[in-house]
């Protein structure tokens, strides 16, 4: 099996400043490469033991592990509010949602491991800051209204990204996505429901809802990654059916379905340039602040340091649980051997 390198310059939604076409390299056997390309073009799924080009393995390892990291780090902004949820009902829901995020991370780590990178290497890359995760989780959750906003917008954007990935060409990733999408729908709906409560509540509550919406709208649009003209790996990923739609196509879809949902709540989209475009059958919207996006990608998000510190602390302070389980197994094995 070819050796895997863990490349870290990219982002779940394919952020890279690398040259356009990934070097497939003369090292790849042209006959096998042609057979592989034909299989992918015929919408067949590639499975772990199948031959695949090194660049395909690398791209997928990076994308799936970063997706996994995003699920894991994604627990932090919401976990922040579990103890302060406004009712037992909301608390039970939030607990279940955060537990789901952990589960999604685990499905994805498993899928990434089938490509030959160990779990340990991936966790280490996250904790050392080498690996990236979605920029959205480096924004703080300031009020309770951020929890509904995240469910509705962030999980909504995630669904938009993940639905096409159910048909991604790598079998284990596609199967993980099927499970994730099934569960993600609950996440978005509970968010929208909680947002409805706030929007229909007191003027203060409605103001909270609008404030959270204002802060999460643009970062949610950034979740789809850089515009297509600056997303150099999109072409290769589309060709290999790792990706099924471009960043801008998905972003447009998200805007088109989310704006009417905001209107229903009586919330104002924080974009003066937002306008229905009859000719294209979709909304035109304002320029995204890409400088902010790239700054967050570089690790300058408002709570980037806090997130990774929290991850590391959780990992280190729970080391005794892992050690105890390993010691228990060693003792049991020794007993059997005796």
């Amino acid at each position, binding site marked *: 099996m070819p050796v895997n390198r863990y490349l870290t310059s990219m982002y779940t939604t394919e952020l890279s400043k690398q040259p356009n076409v990934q070097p497939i390299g003369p090292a790849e056997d042209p006959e096998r490469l042609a057979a592989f390309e034909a299989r992918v073009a015929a919408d067949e799924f590639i499975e772990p033991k199948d031959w695949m080009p090194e660049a395909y393995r690398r791209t997928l390892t990076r994308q799936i592990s970063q997706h996994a990291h995003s699920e894991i780090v994604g627990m932090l902004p919401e976990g922040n509010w579990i103890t302060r949820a406004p009712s037992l009902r909301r608390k039970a829901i939030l607990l279940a949602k955060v537990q789901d995020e952990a589960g999604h991370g685990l499905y994805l780590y498993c899928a990434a491991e089938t490509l030959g990178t*160990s779990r340990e290497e991936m966790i280490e890359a996250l904790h050392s800051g080498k690996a990236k995760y979605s920029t959205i989780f480096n924004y703080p959750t300031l009020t309770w209204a951020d929890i509904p906003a995240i469910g509705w917008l962030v999980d909504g954007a995630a669904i938009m990204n993940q639905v096409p990935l159910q048909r991604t060409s790598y079998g284990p990733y596609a199967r993980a996505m099927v499970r994730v999408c099934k569960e993600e729908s609950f996440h978005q709906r509970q968010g929208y429901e909680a947002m409805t409560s706030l929007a229909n509540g007191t003027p203060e509550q409605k103001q909270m809802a609008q404030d959270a919406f204002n802060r999460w709208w643009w970062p949610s649009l950034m979740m789809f990654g850089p515009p297509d003209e600056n997303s150099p790996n999109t072409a290769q990923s589309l060709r290999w059916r790792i990706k099924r739609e471009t960043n801008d196509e998905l972003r447009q879809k998200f805007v088109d379905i989310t704006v009417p949902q905001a209107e229903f709540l009586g919330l104002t989209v924080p974009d003066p340039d937002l306008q229905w475009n009859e000719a294209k059958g979709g909304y035109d919207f304002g320029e995204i602040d890409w400088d902010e996006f790239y700054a967050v990608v570089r690790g300058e998000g408002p709570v980037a340091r806090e997130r990774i510190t929290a991850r590391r602390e959780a990992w280190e302070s729970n080391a005794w649980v892992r050690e105890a389980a390993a010691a228990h197994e060693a003792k049991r094995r020794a007993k059997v051997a005796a």
Partner: protein
Amino acid sequence: MSDWPLWEVFVRSKGGLAHRHFGSVHAPDAEIALRHARDTYTRRMEGVSLWVVRSSDIVASDPDDAGQLFEPAADKVYRHPTFYEIPDEVKHI
């Protein structure tokens, strides 16, 4: 500490159906593998029974052998009932 061994998880979604592969978990032993499998793969009544098997104990065919293993069946259509022509007026066959 390096990773715990990997276990493949199989779930019987309801009585009468076969266990189906769902994914995998890391665990130091079978008991913890079962617990992790339960937490990871059956949070929404997905199953009534779980199997966990050490991944290293599974022997799989090589994808490169797929041709010689499975292609011989392709030219034996006479193994399928639809290969045989039965006149329309003959019933229940």
